[in-house]
């Protein structure tokens, strides 16, 4: 039965269509795998009954030839997506046992296309974190370990549960969200493929908000093709989200295998950081060489404002978060710590409900928006953001089709290893990814190799607005050249 879990979505889709097996069989195999992998703490809620019901329904439809593009495919859902009748917490105590009466647009499109929900996946609290250690459900373990070591590593974050579950073959794909790297960094840490599409490509309706102008949903899959299949169902205009963009969703899968000959690939010189590990540098050159071998042209490009991206991000994102999280006040839903006055109730509820990292960001955000600091911090960060965007626009205007960078400055690190004393140490994880969110561009992380300790490393491709197709084409070239990476099972 375990064979089922190692199938890709594309393979399972064919098997289901050929009636080689049923969605119920496929789903049961994954439910069993989830049960056996509880040590990873990837799922915060398993929904086996719902999964089997959805699988049966999918089987019925497949039998009648009415199955959608994802008919019968079992997926995991990041706990940031509201799922109707299924507890949704954003992995924060403050939402307590909140059960939405509504379904997020992205997940409703997955169900529309026939996908099966296995359960809700762990993430950093309110998606604030790069290691999945801030979740109120505890950290997630990366299925990858250093060679010869029993130390648990983080899967990255905030979509750590999604990345871990996909890498450990607990689900065929997962939804994720990315505000500063939360899809791409965990994908990189777990040898999975994660794409953050263009801002506005997926509806944010029904996704617990972190930073509205940066948040974007996307898939984590085991292959580039699987990510393309998933994104096609997740993407689309939604009148309920006025920041979503009304442009048709292409058949992303059709981009797989398309020639990249003659494409111009930018290599940004500013991404060569001082003290960058040589294996990252080596990986980057290797990736460039693969693309060149496939017929692409490499050009050095300059993104001079990159160095301001991280500090600007850590003003804009907390500012929006401090406001977005104001609604968690104990009045209408979620946790309430009673008090003798409304002030006491607010303070008690928010102190008990928010973890340390969320509290820190709410305080940073409140500070940078305060009278007297707004111009110096928030307004300035927004100006920097405009300049970062312009960097990319200039680059694309010169005919560059996509930009190649490392996805992360290092491989996965140990649980509790980073950010204990200095949160900036943790924030630096997103150094290659935040610029993409600041510019609203699509970015994909594709596994490309391993470090000396046998841990996966990935490359990032950054594309033009709404040009996810090119990223899939290029991503597949890297995937073909680098091969696929599967962790040895220890759990």
């Amino acid at each position, binding site marked *: 039965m375990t064979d089922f879990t190692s199938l890709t979505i594309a393979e399972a889709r064919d098997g289901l269509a050929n009636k080689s097996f049923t969605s119920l069989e496929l789903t049961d195999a994954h439910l069993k795998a989830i049960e056996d992998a509880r040590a990873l703490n990837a799922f915060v809620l398993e929904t086996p009954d719902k999964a089997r019901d959805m699988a049966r329904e999918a089987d019925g439809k497949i039998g009648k030839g009415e199955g959608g593009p994802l008919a019968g495919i079992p997926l995991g859902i990041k706990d940031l*997506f*509201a799922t109707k009748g299924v507890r*949704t917490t*954003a992995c924060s105590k403050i*939402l307590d046992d*909140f059960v*939405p*009466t*509504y379904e*997020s647009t992205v997940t409703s499109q997955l169900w529309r296309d026939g996908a099966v929900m296995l359960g809700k996946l762990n993430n950093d609290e309110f998606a604030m974190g790069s290691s999945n250690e801030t979740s109120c459900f505890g950290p997630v373990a990366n299925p990858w370990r250093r060679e010869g070591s029993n130390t648990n590593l983080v899967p990255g974050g905030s979509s750590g549960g999604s990345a871990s579950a996909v890498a450990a073959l607990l689900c065929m794909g997962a939804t994720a969200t990315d505000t500063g790297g939360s899809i791409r960094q965990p994908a990189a840490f777990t040898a999975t493929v994660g794409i953050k599409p263009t801002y506005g490509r997926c509806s*944010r*309706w*029904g*996704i*617990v*908000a972190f*930073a*509205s*102008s940066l948040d974007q949903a996307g898939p984590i899959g085991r292959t580039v093709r699987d990510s393309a299949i998933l994104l096609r169902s997740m993407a689309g205009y939604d*009148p*309920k*989200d*006025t*920041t979503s963009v009304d442009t048709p969703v292409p058949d992303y899968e059709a981009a797989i295998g398309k020639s990249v000959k003659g494409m111009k690939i930018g290599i940004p010189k500013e991404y060569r950081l001082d003290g960058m590990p040589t294996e990252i540098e080596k990986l980057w050159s290797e990736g460039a060489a693969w693309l060149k071998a496939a017929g692409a042209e490499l050009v050095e490009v300059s993104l001079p404002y990159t160095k301001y991206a991280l500090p600007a991000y850590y003003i804009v994102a907390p*500012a*929006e978060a*401090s*406001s977005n*999280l*104001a*609604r968690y*006040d104990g*009045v*209408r*839903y979620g946790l309430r710590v009673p008090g003798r006055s*409304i002030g006491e109730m*607010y303070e008690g509820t928010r102190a008990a409900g928010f973890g340390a990292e969320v509290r820190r960001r709410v305080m940073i955000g*409140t500070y940078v*928006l*305060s*009278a007297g600091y*707004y111009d110096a911090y*928030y307004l300035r960060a927004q100006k920097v953001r405009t300049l970062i965007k312009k960097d990319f626009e200039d680059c694309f205007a010169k005919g560059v089709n996509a930009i190649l960078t490392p996805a992360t400055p290092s491989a996965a690190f140990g649980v509790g290893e980073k950010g204990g004393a200095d949160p900036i140490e943790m924030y630096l994880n997103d150094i290659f990814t935040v610029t993409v969110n600041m510019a609203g561009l699509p970015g994909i992380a594709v596994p490309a190799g391993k470090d000396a300790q046998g841990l996966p490393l990935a490359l990032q491709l950054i594309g033009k607005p709404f040009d996810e197709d090119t990223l899939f084409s290029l991503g597949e070239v890297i995937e073909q050249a680098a091969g696929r990476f599967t962790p040895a099972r220890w759990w």
Partner: protein
Amino acid sequence: MTATSGKLLKGATGDWEVVIGMEVHAQVTSKSKLFSGASTAFGGEPNSHVSLVDAAMPGMLPVINEECVKQAVRTGLGLNAKINLRSVFDRKNYFYPDLPQGYQISQHKSPVVGEGEVTVELDGGKTATIGIERLHLEQDAGKLVHDQSPTMSFVDLNRSGVALMEIVSKPDVRDAEQAKAYVTKLRSILRYLGTCDGDMEKGNLRADVNVSVRKVGGPLGTRCEIKNMNSINFIGQAIEYEARRQIEIIEDGGAIEQETRLFDPNKGETRSMRSKEEAHDYRYFPDPDLLPLEFSQSFVDELKAGLPELPDQKRARFVADLGLSPYDASVLVAERESADFYETVLGKLGSAKRDGKVAANWVINELFGRLNKEGKDIATSPVSAAQLAAIVDLIGEGTISGKIAKDLFEIVWQDGGDPKRLVEERGMKQVTDVSAIEKVVDDIVAANPDKVEQAKAKPAAIQWFVGQVMKSTGGKADPKAVNALLKSKLGV
């Protein structure tokens, strides 16, 4: 633009000028809320008009209601204001249980409507022009209910997210009379436009009043803001009290502290609500869930073309076309319902040109006077526009005299009925038959030789004869014919 000087207040140290600026919150007339599809109907069961967005459930997003934007633009046009083709929604952040999101979506730096002006009518036919600083759209909050439990308060979110227009005046208002006239005029314009029902009792129109005092021509004083006034009379009282309070403090050597105050209508006083130190830092920033609000000039032009006639235009037309006095015209146009009623009367008259002015007198003096006396309003008037028009027609045609018309009005008011038929049935027609009147005149002249002598000596005494003739004809004799006959018979 310079402000029209107002009533100065006498203090121990000389005359003081009051400087007033007003922020009027007007609930937009729309079926659904500013950013959600929930109903705006008044008086529903608590929390029965609440969408997921209004309750700020996790992951919910606002979507602008285009009708509310149109209403704001219409209002801006009605205030002769600049319409901004691009404006931005900001978040005003503060915690309160009636504010589910923890922020109010408002327009801080870039409002949808910019500068404009309103001309207001003052006593004695004077006018003043009050500058409009801006108009912006924002969400209303919910309501706390404190009387349901001894230990808890409840929240009703029916109003949460309803669209408000905040209309900010320039500090051009100089006394309580101008302030009251300004709110009255603003309310009238909004009601003409149909962009706000102006119902102050329901809180659909309320004002924050900023008051400061200064010596005439001196630098501006520190202002205090009186919040949430929902009666035009209270606005007047609050300003009078607040200005006096400030003058007393300054003249006693004190200084005014900038603060927010509330008016207590029972005591007729304002009292401190919170000081500047307690003022919120609202941490305004552009709402990242919403794109800037952008529309084209043609969108504005289309709305402009569809605007109804506004009170100032209507008044001018009544004066020019119907010969109404500016005062009568002002009274008629002050309320849209009155103007509508009057125009309905005009429409039903045999000759509006001939009798428009008479009709105006009847609407203002007889009808409004009576309605006022009986505490009724135009909507519940026992006399309809058609009935009033019929009465005016009967006067204009000479069928009845003005005096008889008053009796007829009384009958219609009490019992209803078609005035024309009533006149027939009850024999109220004016007697215009000269021979019939002549006989009465002859009889009275013959019976009163002493009075005849008096009248010959002093022609004004002729009025006694007129009275006698009218008395004996039951008021139905045509007064013109009576006068003419008497003059010739008496040779005066």
